[in-house]
């Protein structure tokens, strides 16, 4: 039952990423929280989602691009994190990052399938009903893809995380530090995208100082 629920959640969130709406409930931060909530551990799910969100800040759902699929990756990671111990957390994030790459490849596959699903005017006249059926059919295939990718990912990631996390030797702070090294790259890339350090140094540093002061007050 739980796998079915996760699978349906993965299918719906995969749709949101590109095919339907793009309200961004598919972003890791939201997907992780929703998965955690579904499994009765919203804070752990949110923490996993926050780390993956940091990694995938520079991954945009542009139509033609190839990108790691954050939605299914986050469901898989948040479902695999289990007790949320340091080792389980690190391994779940790693599993999510790996699975996101694979899920991204299935999006490429889907787009090739869609090219065959969508009728070609060059091969004969097309009616509105035929176009509608093909378009909604493609949406249904995307949902099924997201659901299958999620359930297979969870089935593989859970034993992987459980099997390797018990003797994890690093403390929680060190584990978090290790994970944040990769996420820091995204921060650097974003600053470059926003205009570069020279151009944005003043506002970037102002934000940093404000946050430190704010955190002390809170």
């Amino acid at each position, binding site marked *: 039952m739980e796998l079915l629920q996760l699978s349906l959640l993965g299918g719906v969130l995969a749709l949101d990423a*590109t*095919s*339907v*709406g793009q309200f*961004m*409930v598919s972003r890791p*931060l939201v997907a992780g*929280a929703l998965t955690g909530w579904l499994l009765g551990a919203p804070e752990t799910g949110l923490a996993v989602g*926050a780390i993956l*969100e940091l990694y995938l*800040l520079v991954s945009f759902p*542009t*139509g*033609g691009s190839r990108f790691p699929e954050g939605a299914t990756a986050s469901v898989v990671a948040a479902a695999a994190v289990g007790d949320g111990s340091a080792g389980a957390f*690190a*391994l779940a*994030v790693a599993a999510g*990052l790996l699975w996101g790459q694979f899920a991204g490849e299935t999006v490429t596959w889907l*787009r090739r399938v869609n*090219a065959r699903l*969508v009728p070609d*005017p060059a091969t004969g*006249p*097309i*009616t*509105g009903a035929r176009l*509608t059926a093909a*378009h909604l059919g*493609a*949406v249904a295939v995307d949902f099924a893809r997201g659901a299958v990718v999620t359930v297979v990912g969870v089935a593989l990631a859970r034993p992987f995380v459980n099997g*390797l996390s018990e003797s994890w*030797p*690093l403390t*929680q*702070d*060190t584990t*978090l*530090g*290790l*994970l*944040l*090294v*990769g996420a*820091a*790259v*995204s921060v*650097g*890339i974003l*600053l*470059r995208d*926003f205009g570069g350090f020279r151009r*944005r140094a003043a*506002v970037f540093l102002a*934000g*940093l100082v*404000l*946050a*430190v002061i*704010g*955190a002390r007050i809170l």
Partner: protein
Amino acid sequence: MTGSLSRATLLSTFARSFLIQGSWNYRTMLGSGFAFAMLPAINRLFPDEATRREALHRHMELFNAHPYMTNLALGASIELESEGADADTVRRFKMAVRGPLGSLGDGLVWATWLPGASLLALTLYGVGVPGWVTVLTFLFVYNAGHIGLRVWAFRAGLAEGRAVGGRLTRADLGGWTERLQGVASLLLGALVGGTLLGGEGLGFVTPLWIAIAGVAGLAGLLIGHRTWRPAAATVVAAVVLIAVLSTLGWLG
């Protein structure tokens, strides 16, 4: 001219625009989704079977742009079809706008608004704001811009038709992107400060890891997007290696 179309028809087209990428493919890209969104208007504007089919076929041709900004082309195409523009005019118009709508939308939404909304939520989380508040804040802020842009683009297209380029220039989306990138940079600094120096949401991190993360951030800043995959792969490999070695009893 779109006065010949009912409000319900226009609303139906607008609602369908949320599914415009539903059959995105490498042959027509957004083309089939564009025609799917245009269907309610096409059915009303072309009661004759043959002309309706021709209209459907021309809107199924290759098209690509940012999905939200595509609403501008959608509205303008409805206006063009309503005023009886010939097929070549409609085709040329769509071909002319797809590049600008793609680059303006990608810069404004994907490269600025989306990461900006994420950074706001992550910063709040980093300084200890409750998780559900950060998630709801992200969804509210992002979608205020998202839905607002879709509505504006559709209405601008309907109002201006083929002259929509002037409206696009006056809207100064490039300038908005520039200003929002400044705000996003502030949030980026706040995220770094909140997470690494003073936050509770992600825990405290030791100075050694802050230094290593600083070097990683510098690599991202200097090299750009090419650093992302190697960095993510290195972290994944390190985590798996540590876990395997410790499981085998080779690490303390």
